[in-house]
């Protein structure tokens, strides 16, 4: 995805066990922080077709 031009950090992978609640919170906070910095993702939003 990043090869295609998605900003690095937009797509993240992590492995959290159902017993690792603290890790889950940490990961979610980290991800939302990174994503907020990147701003809204408009790459995959379909724009209205322009009619002349």
């Amino acid at each position: 995805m990043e090869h295609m031009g998605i900003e690095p950090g937009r797509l993240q992978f992590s492995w959290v066990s159902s017993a690792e609640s603290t890790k889950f919170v940490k990961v979610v906070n980290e991800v939302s922080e990174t994503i907020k910095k990147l701003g809204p993702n408009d790459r995959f939003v379909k724009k209205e077709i322009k009619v002349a």
Partner: protein
Amino acid sequence: MLAYTDRIKEIARALLTDCRVELVIGFRKGTVPMMNEPCFINSPDEADQLVWDSNCGINLANYLANRTEKIGIVAKGCDSRNIATHIIENKIGRDQLFIIGVPCQGMIDRRKVNAMFDGEVREVVESDGLVTVRGADFEKSFEKSELLQQNCSVCTHRNPVIFDEMAADPVDEQQGVDRYADVREIEAMDPQQRWDAFEKLLAPCIRCYACRNACPLCYCPTCFVDEARPQWVGKSQNPVDVRTFHFLRAYHCAGRCTDCGACERACPVGINMRVFTKKLEKDCFESFGWEAGLSPDVRPPLDTYRPEDPDDFIK
């Protein structure tokens, strides 16, 4: 090339006469220059139709999936790798196949040739590594190496990896070619440049799905783009939908693509969608040391687990 053709005809005729196969899949002369068409030969006297030259770029493994009869198939390096992939994926049994291996010296890029001349190219003849292109009022000869498809010019598996009989002696494999120069070019860009590069690449796409149909890997009974419930991808010409189709298709080919170039060759508007599949091919090679289809006995990286598999991307 002529010798190849004679030998292929001979083997095909013998196979059909002895009833060792029910049909032979090969190439016959196309109706326009540089476009040989695949053909299915059912009886020994049809075997004379078969040809072999540098315009056999279509991947014949595409016609094997789910067939039940015994088949003889003409296979160059990449075809044979796709046949191996088919065997791994249980799309055909090895015992059903008689593979006529053809050492390949690369296929001619017909777009390159057509772009060189203003008029219509009427005839393309090759002999001893020289390719002569003729039109109504022009004639020019080239070294074959100048006219190769890009994927052929960086190919390192020209000889079939599996075969029952070879049509000729193996050719020398190309040494020291830089297979991933084009991928690295994109990797060097920043995200915005990459996005724009792909946007530009896919702009002419009309979503005819010729690339998918020509691809031996794309044998799903219902492709994800055709599915309506659930509808994974929009069916419009919107750039987002077009891109989604192309990158998802590439993902489906990860660890399976042999870079045979059938998709690019089939594209009516000349999009090089191989830049998607090639990136995944490179990643597979770098992460797992994997090149698709080299043996029908080794399981591909995406369905095996090894403790040393890279996992740096998981936080």
